[in-house]
């Protein structure tokens, strides 16, 4: 069975929790964050209408982890199966992007791969896009298209559960007593909900229709003053890179323990002043505006050249998280205007 119907989320999550740890969205203040699901709690689980605040990369590429022990290596800890509920279309695309980096040919990261294989993904449709959501600008959809094991779509009186992988199909089959057939009416309702949300997103982002691809807009901005202007608002908090689900910079550092040495791996940020500094003191990006520019170039030009995909999913977490008020959408608009201006100048010179 590819699709099924279920009245409530609790029995679904309880069934998953019978097999593995499950992480579910929990509202804290205005935002959702992840916490471990407790089947014995009466309150059940909240359906997150929008992506959670924290990036999904946390589950695959933890903030800090033990990378190596020496001189005597130790067997790495086995990763236990775990499930995460409530990933959105943008989150699934962010995993696709991280896969490019961490499962690359000869340099496949075994820790990432183990977590990736053990992660049971239960995605869900978006209902109320946040003000900052702009996935539609990057060809994203407010619902899952691929990369999930199960997807949950709210409909009248319940949820449609769709399998997106063999693991998902097996789950529905094994727990068939929980589900009933979805019925054509409910599927049509789901599709209408999706179309409505998509329309709403496009409406919210109507101003972000550009004449040129973002790649060209960003590549054209090498000499732009926009970055130095934006840098005046940047307080170098690095939040944009922390909450970004696709940013994956890290650094390695060494520690001395009682009877062994350890190499640790920890998230880093290309916004940090000394991020690229070499031992001799040279730093190619000592100017903050240059660091902002590098980040955009990486996301929309360099990464695309290397992996054939933008390193941004339009989730808007950086917009929400930025303490200085830099809005990547506004930066696009300014850079797009500059490109248009250049086009005009050229046309005039040509006359």
């Amino acid at each position, binding site marked *: 069975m590819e699709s099924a119907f279920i009245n409530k989320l609790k029995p679904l999550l309880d069934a998953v929790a019978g097999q593995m740890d499950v992480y579910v969205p929990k509202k804290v203040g205005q935002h959702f964050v992840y916490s471990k699901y407790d089947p014995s709690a009466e309150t059940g689980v909240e359906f997150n209408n929008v992506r959670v605040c924290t990036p999904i990369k946390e589950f695959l590429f933890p903030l800090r982890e033990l990378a190596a022990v020496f001189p005597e290596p130790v067997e*790495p800890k086995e990763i236990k199966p775990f499930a995460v509920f409530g990933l959105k279309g943008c989150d699934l695309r962010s995993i696709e992007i991280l896969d490019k980096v961490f499962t690359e040919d000869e340099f496949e*990261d*075994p820790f990432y791969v183990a977590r990736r294989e053990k992660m049971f993904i239960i995605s869900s449709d978006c209902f109320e896009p946040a003000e900052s959501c702009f996935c539609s600008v990057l060809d994203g959809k407010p619902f899952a298209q691929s990369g999930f094991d199960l997807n949950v779509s709210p409909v009248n009186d319940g949820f449609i559960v769709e399998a997106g992988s063999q693991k998902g199909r097996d789950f529905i089959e094994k727990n068939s007593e929980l589900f009933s057939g979805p019925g054509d009416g409910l599927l049509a309702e789901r599709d209408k909900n999706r179309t409505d949300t998509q329309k709403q997103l496009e409406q919210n982002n109507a101003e972000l229709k550009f004449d040129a691809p973002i790649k060209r807009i960003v590549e054209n901005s090498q000499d732009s003053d926009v970055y130095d202007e934006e840098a005046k608002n940047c307080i170098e908090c690095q939040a944009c890179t922390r909450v970004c689900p696709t940013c994956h*910079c*890290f650094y390695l550092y060494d520690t001395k323990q009682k009877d062994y*040495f350890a*190499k640790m791996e920890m998230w880093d940020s290309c916004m940090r002043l000394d991020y*690229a500094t070499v031992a*001799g003191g040279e730093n190619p990006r000592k100017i903050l505006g240059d660091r902002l520019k590098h980040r955009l170039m990486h996301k929309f030009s*360099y990464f695309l050249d290397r992996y054939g995909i933008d390193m941004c999913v339009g989730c808007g977490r950086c917009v929400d998280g930025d303490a200085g008020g830099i809005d990547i959408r506004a930066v696009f608009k300014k850079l797009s205007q500059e490109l248009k201006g250049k086009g005009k100048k050229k046309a005039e010179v040509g006359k």
Partner: protein
Amino acid sequence: MKQSLYQPINGEIVEIIDESPTIKSFVVVPEGGFKFKTGQFVELTLPGVGEAPFTPSSSPADTEKMEITIMKAGRVTGMLHECKKGQKVGIRGPYGNGYPIDDFAGKEVYIVGGGVGLAPIRSLFLTLADRVKDFKSVVCRYGAKTPEDFIYKNTLFGSWQKMDGIEIKLTVDEADGQWKDNVGVVTTILEPNDVNIKNAVAVVCGPPIMMKFVTLKLLEFGFRAEQIYLSMEKNMSCGIGKCGHCMLGKYYVCKDGPVFTYDRIKDYPNIWD
């Protein structure tokens, strides 16, 4: 589960050679031997302190031990300079592309080095010297701040100068009483007819400012950007094109480099910083 990508192999420093007041060479024996191509680099860990990228200065023909020449420049290199014989270290790698020496066959190889930049060049030099007949000629131009700052003094002033098929010229920025050779930065000893540019490659390694001016000089002589091989020094950390620290435009210097022909990187901002 497989071991981490960042698991170093164990090694030991078996000899330390004072090269100049700020530079030492460390002879390292990695457990189980170690293979690399000339121009590739390794991440050397001083346990509990940190790691840093270095290009071995020895010939890849020796797989039992390698030599790593290190200038005291930052925290890790400072601590390495305090180390004694017998110090345990970790080694990861080799990483990066190295010099494409097979592409140099039949050509004149014009090597320009400065300061500690002689370290990777020594490895290249020894590799070329092993099969010197494969190349039309090997022409070297080395510079140092003062005569005392030259590294590999014994061989540089001695046996290397007498090798067949190899020509070497040296210069210093500031001479002392005994120095009878050239005085001036390395660009002052470069001449347009040092090699037949049409059938030559240039290999440049040294401090960023020196690489910049040598590159400009070579272009002025008529070298094309794709004939100039630069060994780029960036903040390589993971070594495998993931952590992002060494990005130079779209390239990861650790994975796509550290050797680049100038045409590949010339349009990116601040490449010499």
